[in-house]
Every structure is written in C-alpha cells, then in structure tokens.
C-alpha cells in the first residue's frame, strides 16, 4: 500500500491515489487494464454523485464520504464455518463462492470447473484461457458514464466468475457471499461479478453481503449478467446486513432473444442501500422480471433504481416492489421504463406498493415511463397506504394479538413477490427473515 494516510482525506482523492498502488498488484499489460485506467479517469472527473443529480435526489452519500475507509484489507482474516453457517443457505447443497474482506476464501467455498465454470474473477482476469471471453464480455454491459460503476471497474480484480456453456445447467444453486470482518478499521469493498449464460443455459444465484464487524463497511459492487438466446437466469439478492454496512449494488443485465432473467431483491437491513438494477433487452420475446420486498426500520435507507430498456419488439417486463417502512426509515423507488421506437408490442408492467407504519418514515417514489412506440401496453401503479383497519379488527376479533395480526397482513402484502421465488429453501429462509424483521413468531411456517 503506497498511499499515505492523512486525517480526513477526501475519499475521492484517496481512491484515485490508491489506484497507483493498486496497479502494482495487477498485470498492467492485460487488455483489461486499459479499461481500468479509463474508468479511474472517468471517476476522477465525476467523483461521487451528489443530490443535485436527478438520479441521486433522495440518497446522499455525503456521510459515507467522510469515513476514512481502508481501500485494501491489511491482512487475511479467517472465519470458522460454524460462526457464519447461519448466513449460508445451509438447508440445501449449493456451490459457494465466498470472500472475506474481498479476498477469496477457499476454505468456505465450493467451486467447480466440471462442465461449467463457477470460480473467481481473479482467475478469469489473469489466466490466458479466459482471455477471449473476458474480451467479449467484460465491462460490455456496465460500460457507461456512471461514476460509481467506473470506480468499481477501475479496481476490478476479484469477484465471482460464472460461465455456463450452451445447454448446460449447474446441478445446484450458486451462493455468492461477501463477508466483511474489517477488524482494524472501516473497510471499502468493490467486488466485481461476471455471469454468462450461453444459449439454453439455466442457473440460479443467491447473493449476500454480510458484515461481521461494528466498523463501517461500504460495498460498491458491480455485477454483469449476459443471458444468451433462450437462457434462464434467476438471481436473488438478500440484503440483511448490519446497521453499519452500506451497499451500492450495480447490476447490468444484457438479454438476448427469448431469454428470461428474474431478479428478486430482499432488503431488510443495512445502513444505506442503493440498488441500481439495469435491464437491456437486445432481442425479441424477452422476459425481464424485477421484484422486491423491502422492510425497514430504525434509520435505514433503501433506494431502488430500476431501468428496463426495451430495445426490440415483442418483449415483456414485470416489476413488482413492495415496501414497509417503520421508525425513521426511508424508502426510495425510481423505476424507469424506456420503450424505443422499434419496440412495438411491448408489454411493460410496473407496480410499487408501500406501507408507512410510522410518522417519521418517508417514501419517495417516482415510477417513470418514456415511451416512443405506439403499439405497446405499459402501465404503472403506485400506492402509499396503511394496513386495513377492518382486516385488523377481523383478525383481532378472532383472538390474534395486534402485533401478529399486523404481521400477517404485512406478510400477505409482500406475498406476491415471494410466490415467484423458485428455491423452496430460500423462500422459507426469506419467510423467517420477514418474521424476524417484523418481530413476531407466528407459530407456523408462513
């Protein structure tokens, strides 16, 4: 580590100067390094987004920028499986790609090269055998002007690399888990994932970021997903982190003809969570599904920014986000649908329902449609309301305590989204997390 620490150094400057140190750890002759260098230049010009920018109107990163994050972990920390078992979907067998403070943990992981590649980004970025694929896909969906994505690109080195060849499917779901121990200081992590599903391939991924420390953690993740013709990708994001952990999760999905990508986001925890979920439809008869359940309390802040760009005819997109906000929590939903001139016969649906259960909670929502084709069906609906008093009364008249009755109704409210979870064990786990979050024991499995 070459950078010298001074008090209150600007995080942007610190990151830019750390890039020099970072260069000594990677192969600067690799073609990817040109992409990195360009990305750091873009970040240097743009810096962190501020609230004057329309896309960041409701989310401020100001406080996070004042924290003196350590950019590189000082040493490798080990974890015992028994200590972190609860964060795994241990009820079933899965492939696992586990990182501790951004460093791959082979002890906790289970990867494979048997027919499919479920391994590491660091391997894919260095071994010559992967070079053609990296050249074809790396930063192709995420390229753009976004400064935080550029920041991640600049420091891209480690993460999950998943490649499913034509007509293959891994025999079990894949878990990607990032642990932060940050024992010495606040920690900033920048994982970079690349997921490629070739023609007719199918896979399921569960992703989780988990902080095990009381120090601040900031994760700026970028995931690129390429779904080729007729492939199916299910991606589940479980966000139930500790209250000192903030997450900026940028996901870019490029879909080809006939593919189906479903992304479910479950946001129950964390400090500031920002999800940028971008779908680009580049083919006909594509299905994109974006669903989310957000349950927040205390001072939590979750910002869902979704974009579905319909670029070709005869495609569909479905969005359904439910939010329940208590205490001083803040929820933001900004869903954007763009339908290009050529994208006739598009069906785009978007729904965002919210419940406020405290006077200090806030919801800001902006469902946005930009439509340039005429033969389309696009609709969005958005509601903010309360639990139905009559339904509550009905339940309480039948001997169900108020809290449980409320929880039941809230659960019913979120159930639409849960129904489409296709891994039963995960569904059960989410149910438990919801019950835990609502602070109830219903005495039966929901």
């Amino acid at each position, binding site marked *: 580590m070459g950078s010298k620490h001074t008090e209150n150094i600007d995080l942007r400057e610190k990151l830019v100067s750390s890039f020099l140190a970072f260069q000594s750890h990677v192969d600067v002759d690799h073609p990817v390094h040109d992409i990195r260098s360009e990305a750091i230049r873009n970040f240097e010009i743009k810096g962190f987004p501020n609230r004057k920018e329309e896309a960041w109107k409701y989310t401020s990163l100001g406080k996070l920028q004042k924290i003196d994050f350590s950019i590189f972990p000082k040493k490798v920390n080990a974890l015992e499986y028994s200590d972190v078992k609860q964060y795994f979907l241990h009820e079933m067998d899965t492939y696992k790609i586990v990182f501790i403070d951004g460093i791959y943990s082979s002890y906790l992981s289970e990867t494979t090269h048997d027919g499919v590649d479920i391994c590491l980004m660091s391997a894919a970025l260095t071994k010559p055998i992967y070079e053609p694929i990296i050249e074809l896909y790396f930063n192709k969906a995420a390229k753009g002007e976004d400064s935080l994505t550029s920041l991640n690109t600049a420091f891209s080195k480690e993460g999950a690399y998943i490649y499913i060849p034509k007509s293959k499917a891994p025999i079990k779901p894949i878990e990607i888990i990032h642990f932060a121990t940050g024992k010495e200081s606040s920690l900033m992590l920048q994982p970079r994932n690349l997921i490629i599903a070739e023609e007719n391939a199918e896979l399921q991924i569960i992703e989780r970021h988990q902080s095990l420390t009381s120090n601040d953690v900031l994760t700026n993740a970028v995931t690129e997903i390429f779904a080729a013709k007729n492939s199916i990708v299910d991606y589940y994001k479980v966000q139930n982190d500790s209250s000192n952990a903030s997450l900026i999760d940028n996901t870019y999905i490029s879909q080809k003809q006939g593919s189906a990508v479903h992304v479910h986001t479950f946001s129950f925890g964390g400090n500031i969570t920002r999800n940028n979920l971008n779908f680009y439809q580049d083919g006909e008869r594509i299905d994109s599904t974006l669903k989310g359940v957000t349950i927040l309390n205390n001072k939590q802040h979750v910002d869902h920014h979704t974009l579905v760009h319909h670029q070709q005819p005869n495609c569909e997109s479905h969005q359904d986000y439910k939010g329940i906000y208590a205490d001083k929590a803040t929820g933001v939903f900004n869903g954007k649908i763009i339908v290009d001139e050529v994208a*006739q016969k598009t069906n785009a649906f978007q729904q965002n329902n919210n419940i406020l259960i405290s006077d200090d909670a806030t*919801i800001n929502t902006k469902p946005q449609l930009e439509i340039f084709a005429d033969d389309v069906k696009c*609709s969005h609906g958005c*509601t903010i309301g309360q639990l139905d008093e009559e339904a509550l009364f009905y339940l309480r008249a039948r001997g169900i305590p108020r809290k449980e009755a409320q929880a039941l109704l809230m659960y019913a409210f979120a159930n639409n989204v849960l129904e489409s979870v296709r891994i039963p064990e995960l569904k059960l786990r989410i149910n438990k997390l919801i019950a835990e979050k609502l602070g109830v024991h219903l005495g039966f499995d929901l």
Partner: protein
Amino acid sequence: MAYTEEELKKELETKEYEYGFYTDIESDTLPKGLNEEIVMAISKKKEEPQWMTEWRLEAFRSWKEMEEPEWANIHYKKPDFQDISYYSAPNKKPKYNSLDEVDPELLDTFKRLGISLDEQKKLAGVAVDIVMDSVSVATTFKKTLAEKGIIFCSISEAIQDHPELIRKYIGKVVPRKDNFYAALNSAVFSDGSFCYIPKGVRCPMELSTYFRINQAGTGQFERTLVIADKGSYVSYLEGCTAPSRDENQLHAAVVELIALDDAEIKYSTVQNWFPGDKEGKGGVYNFVTKRGLCEKNAKISWTQVETGSAITWKYPSCILKGDNSIGEFYSIAVTNNYQQADTGTKMIHLGKNTRSTIISKGISAGKSQNSYRGLVQVNKRADNARNFSQCDSLLMGNKCGAHTFPYIEAKNKSAQIEHEATTSKIGEDQIFYCNQRGIDTEKAIALIVNGFSKEVLNKLPMEFAVEAQKLLEISLEGSVG
C-alpha cells in the same frame, strides 16, 4: 435614469402621440434588450407607484443571477433574452378591415369551433363596431359584478386602484425568486388580470364570458392574480379555443390563485397558441408558472386543455395549506407534429385531511413529445392526506413519445396515495367497429379521443367543453396515416 440619445428621441416621439388621435404601434415599443432601465421604463409607462418599481427591480436582480432550467424533457433553441422587446402597447389598430381579408383557413377553424361572427371578427383582429357589441355587453357585465363588490380589472388598473390588495398578495404564492421565468415575469410583466371576490360572494357568471370579449393583446408576460375571500366562489376561464396567431415567440406568464377559508376557485385554461408549422418551424414557447394557495376548507381546481404552443412548460400547482382543503387538476395535453409539452402538477399537502385529485390525459401524434411531470408531497403534519392520480397517455403513430415523471413523497403514515398510469394506442378493433358502422377513420379517432378525454372535458364550463371537444378533433387532424 440615463437615457441614450436614441431613447430620448423615442420618448419624445411617444409623448407627441399622447395628444394624437390614435397611437401608432411601432413608436410605442421599447428598444430590444433587458436591463434595469428597461424595467424602470416599463414601470414608468404604466405609471406605477415607487414600491412596484422596486418590486420589479428586485425581481430583475434575482433573475440575473438565475439560470434557465434544463431539467424538463423538452429541446429547443434557447431564446435570446436581449433580443426581445419587453414592452409594446396593446395593438389598437385593426389588422383587417373586413372578414374577407382574413386567412380563410383560420375562418374555417372558427366556423368549426362554432364561434359567433362578432367574436370571430374580434379574435381575428378585424375592426368591430365596438360601441355596438362588445363594450355594451362588457359594460352590463361590469355592472353586475360591481353590484356584488367583485373587482375584475387589468392588473395595471389594480395596482393604481387597489394597491393594498396587490401589495398584500402579489408574489405571495409565486415568489419572485421562484424560478427563472417567474422572476423574468415579475420584472417585466406587461399586463394581466386581477380579480377579487369579496367575502361570501358567489360570482354570478363564469368570468370567462366577460374575459373572452374583453381580452385585448395582454402581451407576452401576463400576470394574473385571483383572490377569493372567505366563503366566496369564482370560476375563471383563461385563453380561448380559437387559434391565436401571436407573433411573440416567448410567453412567460405567472398566475397566482389565493383561496381563503372556505373559498373555491375553479380555473380553466384553454391554450391554443400557434404550435409551429408541420415542419416544426416557429411556434410559441409557453413557459408558465401557475400556483394556488388553499387556506382552511378551501378548494382550487385547475382544468386545462393544452393543444397549442411549440413548447409547453407548465405545472399548475396547489399548496394545500389549510386543513380540509382540496386541490384538483384535470388536464388534456395534445401534441402533434413537432410540438413538445412537459406539463403536470404539484400537490403539496401541508394541512390535515387535505385531498387532491390528478387526472392527466396526454395525447401525442406526429413527431411530438408529451410528458407528464407531477409531484405529490405529503408533509409530516398532513394527517389523513389523500391523493389519487391517474395519467393516461395515448400514442398515435410510432414517431411520437409519451413520458411520465411522477414524483411521490410521503412523510406521514396516515397518507393514502394512489397513482396509476397507462400508455396505449387506439385499438384497431375499436376503429374497425366504428368503420363497420359507417364512421370513417378520422371521425372514429375523434370519437375515441373524446371518450379518452371525457373525464377532463366534463370539468370544463359547458360552452367551452363543446368547443374544446371540437378543438381536439382539429388538433389531431391529419395525424392518422
């Protein structure tokens, strides 16, 4: 005031004309450009009191510091604010001597809108026997209004005759520094209307009727102030269904509504300014700031039919300050050819039990872009606030665009907010159904569009509803291939 020689010459020229029989239009125009002297000159020409001049100057100073907003979803060549003449006396000289000289296309439109012959003359700028029709009618109206104690006059008159009301209310709802165009308007507004309804009075007529006849070229920077005192009611209509061929490219109007306790204001607008030709050349830039303030139990209802202008930038808003107050917004925005509209509303819920309804219908055809941009904000103390919003877009052809940017911010748990939006096209089956019954495609489309807009058209005062319906038909003519 430091005059240049030329300005002095002009000033003298004008002076001379004061004694003349009629004013020549050309000499009563201020030189192009905008600076403190021009602002003072406008104020002087209108013989305004010192405080008004100061008020304008302060607005001008803040305007200088401001930048033109760029966030709207519209693209246009920015006007050169130094290349505009900010004052020109109302056009008193008739443009034509008889209806025969008027563009037949315009007359045809009038006929189809069902506008009476005398009104046609007035609107087209034909010399009318003033003593015989308009003024006599206007005078009768004026008498009725005066009996009720209603003040309805131009804002310049009001500044002279009712300074206490103007001082108290002007800039209260739309502060001078509110936005770029509001600041510009505050500095240079030429004229506009002022209306005051006393306590408990129900205005006996749609102020529109009067307005339509009495409307003289109020210029490009119009300022309207409507005050409804406690328990009063007024329905006000601005604009006209008739196409207006205005040469002024930039229009930046400000409308302020104040509804005191238990009062109700219904404000309807029909805007049909020159939208530019089929290639998108020319056309009016319409940058309007409209806002209403509701005190306790008050109600403000905005209804608008926007079919004209090349660029529309307009967000009639309601500040629901008093408890139990109600805000409503009903809008139809039609864009054709190369028109661009970015319009919507803001409903700011501050008081308890406040309610708001938003119904917005956007129809885009040709190569136009039509955006709905709205904000529903429920503040922390606004218990039991209720909002319902619906924005529907209809697309005709695949060269146009429809966009929705609804912002919803809720900070109170008892808020109930619903928002829904749809975008669709006219179904081929619907047209087929009409065709089968002997209705040609163009008529069928008009029928369907009218059905689509019915919820808003119903909110317009009766006679305008009829005209607006026909207006929709005409605006969309030729948009179906």
